Every structure is written in structure tokens, then in C-alpha cells.
């Protein structure tokens, strides 16, 4: 009884959802959106990319997971940069009132700026790097767009440390460095990881936009190229891949996050 209920909730209902979307898609592609490939055609056109996910047939004709891998590598670099910059800034914001007063307004202004707006600035900054310019510009864009959740969550985490823990540090007369490493960082870790997770989500959003602009091999670059060559089936393949990878990354981070929350 319990098992069947479990199956119903976790298998049958999601399947019904998927089927409903497929039906809607099929109806759309035969009625009002004639250019939209049907699910079946999408599957047929995507097959070579899926059955040989790591094949390399040409610069812009590679298996879907190979493209994903290129994108993930770039995201990893930009995201690491975001964490390296964002976490200390978050700590400063959380610990120092003058620092908050000074930099909070500018952060609030920069935070909602779209990656598409940052990218030209990134390219311009690294213009002198020549061939590397587009990659460095991309890293800059990923880092600056994805660091805000880390910055803000770390700041909130530091401010939310219970007074009890700080009293312990005071009573033991811990040095500022020891207070930071023994009390403040462990106490704000759960918040920090929430920030890390949100940042990773944004980094993954940004990569697609950036790759479209630089036309570099990767999931976003492939998407844009297939649009230009009017292979619309592959656009859908890319969208689904981006979605699934994004979802997997988020799950992965929330597993890590939960580990720290229970501690």
C-alpha cells in the first residue's frame, strides 16, 4: 500500500506531466507553430548526438556531453573565481558595519545587471590578451554575475551567528583569527553553502548566454550555431540538456549543503 503510493507520487504523476507536455508540443508543431519540429523528429535528429555523446566529428559537430563538458569546465573556472572573490567580500560585509554602509549601495546597483551587459565590458578589459580575450571576458562575466548570492548569503550568515557562540569566543578570549576560523566560519557555513548553490545556478545560466556571444564550442555555442544553420531539432536538444545539467548541479550542491546543515 505504502509502496504503491510512493510509486504513484514519484513515478506515475511526473510521467503524466511529461506526457502532457509532449502532447502539447506535438499539437503545437502540427497546428500553429509549423517550424517547431515534432517530438519524434527531434528525437531522430538528436540520436547521433546522444548515442555517441563524446564523439568529435568537427569543431562544431560533437557529442552532446562533450559540448556540455566544455561548458562545465568554463563554468567551473568562472565559478571558482566568483567564490574566491565573493566569500571574503561577504565576510567583510557581515563583520564590518562601515564596510556594509560603504559598499551595499553599489552592490545593490551592480547585482541586477544582466550578463549580456557585462560581457562587452569583459571583452574590452582583456582586449590586449589577443586570442585569450574571449575566454577571459567570459570568465569575468561568469564571475561577476554569479558572485552576488555568495556575497549576500555569506554576509547574512555572518550576521546571523547566535550571540552565544560569540560569547564563548569572548569568554575564552580567542584571538580575532581564531574567532574567525573556529567560530565565525563554521557557524556561517550553512548560509554560505546556500549562497554557493544559488551562485552555481546563475553561473550555469550565464555560460549559455556568453557562449552564444563568443561562438565557442560548448552547449550554448552549439545551440546558437544550430539556430543559424536552421537545425531546430538541436535547439530543443540543447535546451533539454541545459535544463537537465542545471538540475543535476543544483541537486548535487543541495546534497553538499544538507551535509553542512546537519553538522
Amino acid at each position, binding site marked *: 500500500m505504502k509502496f504503491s503510493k510512493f510509486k504513484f507520487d514519484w513515478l506515475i504523476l511526473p510521467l503524466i506531466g511529461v506526457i502532457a507536455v509532449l502532447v502539447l508540443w506535438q499539437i503545437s508543431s502540427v497546428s500553429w507553430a509549423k517550424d517547431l519540429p515534432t517530438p519524434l523528429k527531434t528525437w531522430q535528429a538528436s540520436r547521433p548526438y546522444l548515442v555517441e555523446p563524446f564523439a568529435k566529428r568537427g569543431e562544431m559537430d560533437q557529442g552532446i556531453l562533450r559540448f556540455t563538458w566544455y561548458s562545465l569546465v568554463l563554468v567551473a573556472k568562472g565559478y571558482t573565481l566568483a567564490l574566491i572573490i565573493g566569500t571574503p567580500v561577504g565576510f567583510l560585509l557581515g563583520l564590518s558595519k562601515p564596510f556594509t554602509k560603504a559598499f551595499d549601495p553599489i552592490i545593490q546597483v551592480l547585482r541586477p545587471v544582466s550578463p549580456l551587459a557585462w560581457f562587452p565590458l569583459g571583452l574590452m578589459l582583456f582586449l590586449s590578451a589577443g586570442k585569450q580575450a574571449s575566454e577571459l571576458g567570459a570568465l569575468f562575466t561568469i564571475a561577476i554575475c554569479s558572485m552576488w548570492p555568495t556575497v549576500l548569503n555569506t554576509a547574512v550568515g555572518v550576521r546571523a551567528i547566535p550571540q552565544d557562540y560569540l*560569547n*564563548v569566543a569572548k*569568554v*575564552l*578570549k*580567542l584571538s580575532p583569527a*581564531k574567532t574567525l576560523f573556529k567560530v565565525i566560519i563554521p*557557524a556561517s557555513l550553512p548560509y554560505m553553502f546556500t549562497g554557493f548553490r544559488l551562485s552555481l545556478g546563475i553561473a550555469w545560466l550565464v555560460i549559455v548566454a556568453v557562449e552564444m556571444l563568443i561562438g565557442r564550442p560548448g552547449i550554448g555555442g552549439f545551440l546558437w550555431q544550430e539556430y543559424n544553420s536552421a537545425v531546430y531539432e538541436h535547439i530543443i536538444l540543447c535546451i533539454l540538456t541545459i535544463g537537465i545539467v542545471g538540475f543535476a548541479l543544483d541537486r548535487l550542491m543541495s546534497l553538499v549543503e544538507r551535509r553542512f546543515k546537519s553538522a
Partner: protein
Amino acid sequence: MPYLELKNVSKGFGSNGSRNDVLRDINLTVEQGEFVAIVGFSGAGKTTLISLIMGLLKPDSGSVRLDGVEITEPGPDRGIVFQNYSLLPWLSVFENIFLAVDQCFPDWNPAKKTEHTEKYIAMVNLTPARNKRPHELSGGMRQRVSVARALAMDPRILLLDEPLSALDALTRSTLQDEISRIWLENKKTVVMITNDPDEGIYLADRIIPLSAGPGATLGPSITVDLPRPRDRKALNHEPRFKEVRRQVIEYLLNSKSKQHAAITRKLILPDIEPEDLNLPWQKRTGRAAIRPGEIKSETIEIP
């Protein structure tokens, strides 16, 4: 000369308009090796009092001295056991205590620090749980860790801030026995804050009631001249125990009834806009003018 001395200490919170006197004219002397219990109603300012001795708060007037030296900041020479345990949840029992030991005795070699830590874990009977995290322990066990941590610092004075009031009655009496035993072994100077007169009398050499707030002050000190070790069961029939308890409770209840009855009522005042406001623009006086519209309630005391 007394070991710990509080002289004419007053402390209040809030500023100017809504000032709230918590403690008024506190005078307290504690001799070395003495166990003093302070009993009062909840909200009377007991935690404020212990924070003053701890150095987490500074008195508005008067002085707090330990061994003749004015207390200005917290330090490991005063071990404290907080009501809410205040253990670091990401550290195990051993690590929580070791952090304190490491901080208080930086010159010791690691083996000696470990040995010292183990000794205090054993003292509170927690050796089997030494690698557990606080959230895996019961309230009573957590409080024992907290006691062990405070004692492992080898403080000159031990402050207990309602250490047992978050625990159930049975655990409470077990821990009372344990504190009594540990105190007999160590003979530390102890100031304990509690809201339970029986607990104070059972454990302490002297018990002092703290009158009901606001503006709480200490009542007469009552010596508990009962022989140690005390037997919890026999104590209930001891005439001296009953007498001390009567005095303490009588003082506490009297202080509460003497308190003026007060009526607080909400005020809705018209927010009048003056036609011409020729007041000089006051900057940096640290006190903003209060508009009538900001006064939301008024308290009238009835003598």
C-alpha cells in the same frame, strides 16, 4: 579583603526616554572558596548580574572587582556555564573542551592538553560520549559538557547562570548532586544564579535573594549552615532548611508585592503640525526631539 566584590553597582538598558533600570545598588562580597547562590524571579535581572561579573556588560555606576582588580572585559579567569549550554555545535564534546584548554594553557604540550581535557570529561562522566556532537546529547549531558569546559579552564571563579533551569526535574536533581560533588572536590569559588530556592539552599554556603525588578537589588544574605555532604531526602525535614527557605521566599514575595502596580495605556495623540517651527537645527546632540505622535503608550504607577 573579599575575593569578589560588587560595590553599588547599577545597570540599566535603553536610553533617555525609555530608560529601564534593571539592577540598582547591588552590593555583594564573596570570599574565596565560597559557594554563593542568588535566587530571584525570572526577568529580575539575574543574567544581567552575572554578565556584569563576567565582563560581558559594564556597570553604569559602581565597580566589580575580582581579587582587587577591576573587571573590564571577559576572560578565562572566570569560567561560566550558560543556561543554554553555549556549546559549539560543529565540535565534538572533546573538541569543545579542548578548545578552552588550548586557549587557557597555550604553553602545555599537546599530550598534556589532551590528558587535561580527558580528565574533565571523566569528571562529568562523559567519557563514552567524548566524540559525540552536542546535538546527539541530551540537555543534561550538554550542560555537563558546559560545566566540564568551564572547570577545565581552571578559573579563579566559576559562574553558573541558571545552569539547570532548562532541564527536567529528575535530570536536574542528578546534576545538582553532581555539581555538589564536583564542588566538594575542587572547592572553587562559585556564584550560582537560580530561580529555585531549594536548589540554592541545597548547594550553597550562602543564599541571597534578588528582589523583583525593575530596579532589582540584593536582599539580606542568609547563611546555609547545614553540614556537607547534604542528603537531599533528609534535608526536607531539617528545621534549618525550612527556616532558610521560609526567609528567602518571604523576602522574594514581599519584594514583589511592594512593587507598585502600574497601568500602561495606549495613547493616541494628535500629530499636530506647527505652522512655524523656529527651533534651531540641532545636530549631533545625540538626542532627537520626540514628537507627540511617537509616544505610543504611557505607564502610570499607582503607589
